[in-house]
């Protein structure tokens, strides 16, 4: 069974999803995460929803899985995949036949396994901008609700994001395979020697690391320059002072005494590091030979 964790919360029965959900997949921010000890009720704290809400789990699916999904008996608009009730899905594919209207945008999503109509309601200007940036032929990640209307299946999207890193496509399909296997794998029964004798139903812990680093690989704007040699930590500390926006915006730069005070390091040590960094071209003297700035200012 899958619980939902919101951005890294979670505990008890429902593990929180990855804290980096939004940076890894963009939009949504809900990451499916496998529940452990699923038979033990719903007392877990943190990011998990109660068992009755498990249809809210965001499932990565292919279009074929959606088309093959069976409708649940109690409600014609609800669907089940691999025996699990599902309403919120993540799809990845190419946008086709985009049609802009006043209040919404409709398009067809083709992921190679089939095609499904998608509708995105534009409630405010951010929604409009999000959709304006995406054109026919672009690969997109769609998070949305699965709906059935007059026998046809469609997705009402609440997030549509253009893919810039195509690892996301591969990742999505691997994720679909992984989730499908987890949901169809027979649950191993382990008899726990507890007083009640109730068997604990266990599932292997989700092996996928959701807390991956963001895919853009961008270093922080104020990262220290590379190859700064031995005593790197101290050099980085000194350079980070010069990369402080307040210092970078000061035309005159700062002196050894300022850096020394701020880092609580001896002036002699700081002075030597600064001279070395001037020789390497990471820093330069400004109004005199005692005030310095970083070359990262441009």
């Amino acid at each position, binding site marked *: 069974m899958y619980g939902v964790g919101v951005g890294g919360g979670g505990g008890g029965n429902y593990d929180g999803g990855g804290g980096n959900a939004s940076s890894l997949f963009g939009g949504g921010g809900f990451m499916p995460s496998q529940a452990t000890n699923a038979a033990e009720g719903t007392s877990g704290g943190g990011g998990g929803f109660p068992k009755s809400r498990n249809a809210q789990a965001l499932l990565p699916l292919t279009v074929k899985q959606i088309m093959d999904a069976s409708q649940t008996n109690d409600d014609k608009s609800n669907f089940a995949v691999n025996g699990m009730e599902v309403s919120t899905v993540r799809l990845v594919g190419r946008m086709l036949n985009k049609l802009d209207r006043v209040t919404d945008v409709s398009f067809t999503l083709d992921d190679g396994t089939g095609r499904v109509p998608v509708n995105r309601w534009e409630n405010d200007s951010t929604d409009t901008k999000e959709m304006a940036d995406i054109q026919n032929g672009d690969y997109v990640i769609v998070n949305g609700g699965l709906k059935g209307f007059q026998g046809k299946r469609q997705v009402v999207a609440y997030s549509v994001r253009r893919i810039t890193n195509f690892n996301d496509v591969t990742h999505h399909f691997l994720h679909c395979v992984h989730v499908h296997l987890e949901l169809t794998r027979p649950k191993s029964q382990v008899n726990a020697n507890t007083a009640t004798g109730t068997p604990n139903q266990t599932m292997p812990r989700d092996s996928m690391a959701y807390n991956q680093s963001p895919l853009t690989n961008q270093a*922080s704007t104020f990262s220290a320059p590379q190859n700064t040699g031995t005593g790197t930590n101290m050099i980085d500390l000194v350079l980070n002072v010069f990369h402080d926006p307040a210092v970078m915006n000061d035309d005159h730069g700062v002196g050894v005494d300022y850096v020394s005070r701020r880092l609580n390091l001896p002036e002699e040590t700081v002075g030597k590091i600064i001279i070395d960094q001037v020789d390497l*071209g990471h820093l330069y003297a400004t109004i005199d030979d005692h005030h310095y700035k970083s070359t990262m200012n441009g």
Partner: protein
Amino acid sequence: YLEDRIRRSGSLFSASGLCGEPADATLASEESMFSVGMVICDGEGHLNEKSILLQGSVEHSRGQHVRLDLKDVDRFSLFPGQVVGIQGHNPSGHCFVVSKLNDSIPNFVDAQLPRAKKQAVDSEGNQSSDVVSRVLSSVIAAGPYTTSDNLLFEPLQELISYASRKQPQLLILMGPFIDSDHPEIKKGAVDKSFQDIFLFEILRKLQDFTQYLGHNVRVILIPSVRDAHHDFVFPQPAFDLNLPEDITHQITCLANPSLFSCNEIHFGCCTMDILKHLSGEEISRKPPGEKHGDRIGRICTHILKQQSYYPLYPPPAGVPLDFSLANGALEIASAPDVLLLPSDLAPFVKVLSLDESSEEPKRFICMNPGRLAKGIGGGTFVELNYNEDTDKTSASLIRI
């Protein structure tokens, strides 16, 4: 301009015979291939090892870019805008695994001329250099020429006094002359036009100097984008001075950047602070355990390896780079003997070589004379006595 650079570099690489015809690096292939493109960053921050993309030419890669994986390269020095040749393969189509990286664009003469013709050109050059002895005494300085507390141009007067004593054949003065960053210029607290300040405070002093030394001295003036009385654009035209006829042959105004020669010694000069800009953007890797190389020297050689006075792209905010003017102006057609790169970085004079691996690497002198005035105090300039080649040449960095 950028597309031209990539395409021209690609043809120079293939014409050099060192590597094959450039292929499309964005296409998936298990086979090793050679490609040429421009290093770009995948976002708006500074370049780092994980954010390096290669932008191909429209001709070979439809202008598309591909991520570079440099895990197999033990030594590199990269910056955005750098044109490189890469050998490697792209198994997935999304990431090019580099096995060999060449950041030095082959020389035009080396690449385009047959060997016999090249030797003829070389020997022609040698013959002509016998006629004029390659000996030159020079004094080289870069602005500002006045301290930040006044507009009296005392450091310039000091420099001229020194030059009058030493009597060099060449005095090279690089901008800014009327520094737009000077507090009084910034405030507009002057009662003369910027052009008048230039004419009366600077040009008049130089005219007196040339009259004092007679016809033995030449003065070269090169503007800077920090010059308040001149066009704020880069590349930048020369000053337009209406000088008296008797000294027009002694005071010469050149564009920024420019390549000029004196006594068969070729000088390249760019007053845009490319060293500082490159220093802020360059990233490098060296084999573990190896000592620090000369980082500033490495940055200087990039300029000649890239055959461009301003190979960085995109330029930092505030650099008025105009690509419509760049095509011929930024190109370094042949490697100069002396490369003048005035910068806010620490002043230096270095003898550098372009290709360490070759038997006779082309050696050149690269210098940053520093600023003649720094804040409320004096700064530095360089005295260079060039003698035939770099081995017999002497240079001193002088503080005023």
